[in-house]
């Protein structure tokens, strides 16, 4: 019986990674929910747009590294974030101008928007791969660990070790800051209020003199910043592969729907639920139980509910449960 070791083990292998993953998902899901409540369609190009923004950041990082610029303990990618944001926001605004604006003008059905976003997804995907290929790119530099397994063991004297990778700490911290700023923006500034008004009641918002095109532009700008941040954090944590970003689409949508589409708080809560469920169900609990059970009763199996390859199944199961029992999500999102 060593509950302390069990706690350390579960923190190291599940809680910290899930918290980081959840933060990355949350930023992405926030973008989905914003686009959903302002532009009123499911943005299927989300994952690939994220990949493109991250590719820009990686380009900036490599340029800075070649110039010898560095902010040592921190990864150089953070310095390249603004560059990636500018590139991605430009790209989003151009696609909006070339693609989506026309459909807004003719008041097309939401499904046509989704279809158009599919086309944008193809193009974005192609552009990203033109630059980056399909392989994995690693761009993490700076200090790798805040404290490593050995440091932890030396300090605490426990048998089980725990490490905190700097990418994980940066992820959790950055996500927190971004969320706070976003909520401040939505609730306190004039632009944020006009966005909420527009999402709440379009006609009334127009009547009170809110310029819809301006609201749309602000939405894309915020989405771009969220996507670049989320994508860079994910890439720092797990490496950059375009296909992985496409696959993030499902958990991000699941998070947004679980929280309630159109509800920013919901997107964040949903993202953490999805992340913890994915990690918890595919995590091999054997070590933890070995510490918890009295001697001689240690489990023999892996104590893993599902193999890691089925993490999509977990997300999907969450989605199905929400759709069956509470289609509006936890925070009663809009059913537009």
């Amino acid at each position, binding site marked *: 019986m060593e509950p302390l070791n069990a706690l350390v083990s579960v923190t190291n292998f599940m809680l910290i990674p899930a918290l980081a993953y959840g933060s990355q998902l949350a930023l992405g899901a926030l973008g989905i929910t914003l686009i959903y409540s302002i532009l009123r369609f499911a943005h299927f190009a989300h994952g690939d747009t994220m990949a493109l923004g991250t590719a820009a950041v990686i380009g900036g990082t490599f340029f800075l590294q070649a110039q010898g610029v560095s902010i040592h303990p921190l990864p150089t990618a953070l310095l390249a974030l603004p560059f990636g944001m500018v590139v991605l926001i430009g790209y989003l605004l151009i696609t909006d101008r070339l693609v989506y604006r026309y459909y807004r003008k003719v008041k097309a059905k939401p499904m046509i928007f989704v279809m158009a976003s599919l086309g944008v997804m193809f*193009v974005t995907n192609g552009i990203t791969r033109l630059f980056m290929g399909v392989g994995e790119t690693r761009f993490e530099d700076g200090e790798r660990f805040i404290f490593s397994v050995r440091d932890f063991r030396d300090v605490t004297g426990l048998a089980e070790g725990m490490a905190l990778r700097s990418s994980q700490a940066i992820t959790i911290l950055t996500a927190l800051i971004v969320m706070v700023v976003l909520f401040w923006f939505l609730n306190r500034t004039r632009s944020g209020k006009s966005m909420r008004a527009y999402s709440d009641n379009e006609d009334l918002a127009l009547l009170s003199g809110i310029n819809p095109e301006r609201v749309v532009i602000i939405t894309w700008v915020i989405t771009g910043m969220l996507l670049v941040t989320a994508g860079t954090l994910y890439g720092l944590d797990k490496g950059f592969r375009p296909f992985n970003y496409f696959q993030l689409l499902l958990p991000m949508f699941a998070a947004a729907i679980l929280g309630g589409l159109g509800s920013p708080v919901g997107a964040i809560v949903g993202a953490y639920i999805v992340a913890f469920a994915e990690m918890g169900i595919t995590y091999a609990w054997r070590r933890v139980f070995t510490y918890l059970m009295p001697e001689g009763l240690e489990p023999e199996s892996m104590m893993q509910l599902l193999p890691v390859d089925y993490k999509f199944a977990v*997300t999907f199961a969450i989605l199905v449960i929400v759709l069956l029992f509470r289609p509006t999500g936890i925070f009663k999102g809009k059913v537009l």
Partner: protein
Amino acid sequence: MNLTARDLGLFALMGVVLAMVGMFQSWQLAITILNMSLISAIMALGVNMQWGYAGLFNVGIMGFTAVGGLAVVLVAQPPVPEAWAAGGLGILLGLMLGVATILAAVAVYKRMSPGKLRALAIFAVLVIGYLVTGYVFGPAKNAVQAVNPASEGYLGGAGLPVILAWPVGAVFAAGVAWLVGKVSLGLRSDYLAIATLGISEIVIAVLKHERWLARGVNNVTGIDRPVARPVDLQPQAWVQSLAESLGWGVGQTASVLSGLGYAGLFLIVLALLIWLAERALNSPWGRMMRAIRDNEISARAMGKNVTRRHLNIFVLGSAVCGLAGAMMVSMDGQLTPGSYEPLRFTFLVWVMVIVGGSGNNWGAVLGAFVIWFLWVQVEPAGRWFMELVTSGMADGSGLKQHLLASAAYMRLLTMGVALLLMLRFAPRGLIPER
């Protein structure tokens, strides 16, 4: 068969283009393009039923085709008696226990009144069911996978004629579609899209990792084919004399003949499907579907059960996709779960439907031919383009190599641009709905 002269002209043009591929590139390539176009046309027909007739957005085509492909393995491969003896019963029992668990949970949900007690009961049923299922299923699975893992390690199929797998594939896909549709139809229209996206990823994950089922990523190869293989045709006397009179090599003649055999089979299926689809579209049922698509609320006011009708057509369309998936696997003679990619199997089919003309079956077929042709030919064209762009650069420069290597991704870009342009400037497609 209400085709105008213009539509026929478009099909004729496509035929001429394929013939030109045959003359200037090779007849083998032309036949390969033709066969894959026919299969894609069937997939596009299925999607067109869902989108064109009913406005349902299915982004899980990959999953339904893969399930159809699985049917080929389960029907046509010979059974593996050792594996069945080792754990066949355990696997069957385990699967049944899994289903029974879910049914029991549903029964508890329906019988008991809402409250904490019900939630607790459902939870208990699921946990106990999971443990019992795992206890039966796990060891049986491992036993099966341990049987001769290099070439078998799975239960095998039923050893029936491979043609039978085609309808079975359709039934499999229909079953999966029913489950997905039951959950997500009747809610917001894009929930279906997200649910299908999820189920297709799961189907592929299951195919990759459940080795007892179809060997997972180890692939099942050498599946029986409905048409004689080129290798079997080569020694035939009439093939050799035909090759001589055509002035081709024997190998080329044999592979073209084999491909033509497939083309004949596929054409029969496609013709049958189009005939059925056109009949359905112009029947009271088809008019009702279009009425629902165009104005759901008034259709509902007329007493139509919109959700049920949507479920019908979603299952039908997915079944057609499953049929196409089974046909594809039986043409390749192998099931390779690793080769299923959403961009190629889901989104490309969408481009076909949109470019061809959604709501028109002939349009979907033409779109499949045009887009598959482009998909195959854009890559060499892209390489040629990149070589032109880079011709001024010094040999061996990093940029030049990078540009040449990334020519392959030009096709994604081209497809996306084609989709966007069609959607914007000709949303009704090459052959519009009438």
